[in-house]
């Protein structure tokens, strides 16, 4: 199979030919397993910067002689979704930019990255607003916490909310970011409307010091369990059954979820752990990831030594392109050994919000299934 870029390399390279090449393709050019990244302009060098664990993080694009086109072709497995930037080097200085030829962007707290969708990847339909789906309501509330002082948190209230019913509750760590970068509110609207997940109240928490508070900090678990949830229970009809209490989070948020469940056994029945930063050691107590992980290492090491039941059902997901796949793959058999119901999913994606977004349907419908199994119209 001839790649589109090869036609340019081997063909005429007049300016109008290059213009025609750029106009005729969408970028990166995805053809079967091949993804060709292209940048056009004057520079000393251009590099592809990505976060795919196992591949060279910085890869140089080659210039097609006689043109201002730079290119690099990588082979990506089917279904891959890869975030990247381009580094353009001029006057000895590199500048990281989003790919100007690629309109696909993924936002995160640090800005935005360009995204390539390899063959077989499709943005799930349920992440986009559905005009026919009833919309839930987002609210912002303040709590005067004995542990952390005055702190705001968000609430997602499902459409058709009724005070006479009892609702499952999810505490979403970094919940505001889940809404901003993983469309959590839209996903909930759609999945509830499709009857795939239960009508659920979601508490969106955010921490000004998440790297400390989420890293197996007793204060955090106490805040969530003894202050935040009782406060929400006073405001809204929340089910008292453990199987209707779920903790979720990604990265350090997953650690906070597991740590909180560990400290309150029997209280939380459901956990959704995405790309958890579950660092551990097999010898010694210092992990290569640095001191921020020290408390996590102790927690995970303790758990690996004496695994116990921390919920009824645990959903674990991780990207195959992130370094944390090692930690998550290692944790899963430990969780399984306790007899908990564990579901483990890997995706060809990285440590990013859209990876976490794309797993929400699978995870939430398994943890808190809606009435789709009971409804026959």
């Amino acid at each position, binding site marked *: 199979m001839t790649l589109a870029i090869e036609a340019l390399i081997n063909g005429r390279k007049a300016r109008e030919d290059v213009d025609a090449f750029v106009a005729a393709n969408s970028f990166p050019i995805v053809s079967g397993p091949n993804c060709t990244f292209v940048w056009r302009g004057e520079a000393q060098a251009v590099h592809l910067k990505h976060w795919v664990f196992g591949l060279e993080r910085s890869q140089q694009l080659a210039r097609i002689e006689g043109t201002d086109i730079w290119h690099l072709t990588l082979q990506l497995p089917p279904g891959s979704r890869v975030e990247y930037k381009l580094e353009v080097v001029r006057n000895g200085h590199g500048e990281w930019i989003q790919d100007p030829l690629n309109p696909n962007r993924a936002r995160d707290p640090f800005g935005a990255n360009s995204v390539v969708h390899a063959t077989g990847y499709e943005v799930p339909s349920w992440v986009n607003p559905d005009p026919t789906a009833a919309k839930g309501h987002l609210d912002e509330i303040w709590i005067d916490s004995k542990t952390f002082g005055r702190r705001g948190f968000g609430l997602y209230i499902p459409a*058709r909310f009724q005070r*006479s019913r009892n609702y499952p509750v999810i505490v979403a760590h970094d919940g505001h970011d889940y809404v901003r970068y993983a469309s959590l509110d839209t996903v909930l609207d759609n*999945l509830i409307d499709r009857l795939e997940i239960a009508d659920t109240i979601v508490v969106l928490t955010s921490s000004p010091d998440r790297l400390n508070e989420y890293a197996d900090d007793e204060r955090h678990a106490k805040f969530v369990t003894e202050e935040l949830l009782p406060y929400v229970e006073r405001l809204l009809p929340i089910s008292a059954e453990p199987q209707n209490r779920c903790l979720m989070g990604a990265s350090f948020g997953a650690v906070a979820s597991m740590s909180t469940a560990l400290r309150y056994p029997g209280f939380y029945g459901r956990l959704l752990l995405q790309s958890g930063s579950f660092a551990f050691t097999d010898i010694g107590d210092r992990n290569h990831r640095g001191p921020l992980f020290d408390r996590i290492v102790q927690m995970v090491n303790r758990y690996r030594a004496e695994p116990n039941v921390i919920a009824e059902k645990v959903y674990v997901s991780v990207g195959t392109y992130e370094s944390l796949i090692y930690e998550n793959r290692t944790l899963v058999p430990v969780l399984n050994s306790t007899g908990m119901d564990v*579901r483990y999913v890997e995706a060809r994606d990285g440590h990013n919000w859209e990876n976490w977004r794309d797993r929400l349907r*699978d995870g939430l*419908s*398994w943890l808190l299934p809606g009435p789709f*199994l009971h*409804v026959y*119209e």
Partner: protein
Amino acid sequence: MTRKVVLLGPQGPTPDVGAVVKDLGIKGPVALVRAGYQERESDDEALVTALGVPAINLTLHARGNDVFKHEAEFATAYQARQQRLRQMQRLYHTRLEGTEEAAKRISLRYVEPELLAQEEKVSVDQYRYMDLDHIERCQAVRAAFDKEWPYKNVPLIAQHRHEVRELVGPTEALVITGGHVASLLNRLQLFDVLAAAGDRPIIAWSAGAMVLTDRIILFHDYPPYGSDIAQVLDAGSGLVPGYAVLPDARRRINLGAAAGIQRFARRMAPATCVAMDHGARMVFDDGELVYADATRLTTTGDAERNWSGEASRFSTPYLGGVHV
């Protein structure tokens, strides 16, 4: 006089229930149960138009809410019963998953095919045992509740039952729509609607059809989390015994998976498994099937389309197991 029951497939945007009403010579009015639609049960305008005859909506869901609102002690006990049933359902499902996993692992063993066939039969027997046990235990929970809370001792229920009987009185038939099957089953029982209907013809579809059988099956081959195993919810009313009704089959069942169909049909035997899509119809006189146009799932793994209800080469039931 015989009681006629007509089961239909999902009605969708082009309902065929009006033709059935006409075939039965019903001029109306009919009593209408839309409790499966819960809060939306009163949105019946399009359906009444499709019926072609006047209809009296029995508003069972709203009546239930009225009872729960005003009979606090009863409501608490009722919710506790429902919670127990839900917990039992989850635990039974966990057992089914364990058996499913074991069956898969055993089917991959390097042993003689004849031994694998024996083991497959053991797996099916285990499902059958668990299904029956689940139904019996659900029924025991319901019986204990009914004993503790005789409905005649709850004045508001007695009043609503009386009103339902009064409303059904002048009607010529009972029509039960689809919706949430557990909600529908519970409301029909709470207000004793089938008894109120007496010998009137009943026309029902989807969840409405499921609750008239003796065994309600929850199923979906394509759940959002990937895959799942069919499970029994509870016993139905048993007006049409011996059939496992599976509505909306094209969307919910992998009809090309012969092994899955075979295992399911053997698990349900001697009940006949009937997939009912839009346009399907089964007609019963006093519980006896007199007409069918549906798809039968057979113990040999076939989806027998245009099944007319007659015996065929697929009719030999799979009679393994201790509970046949």
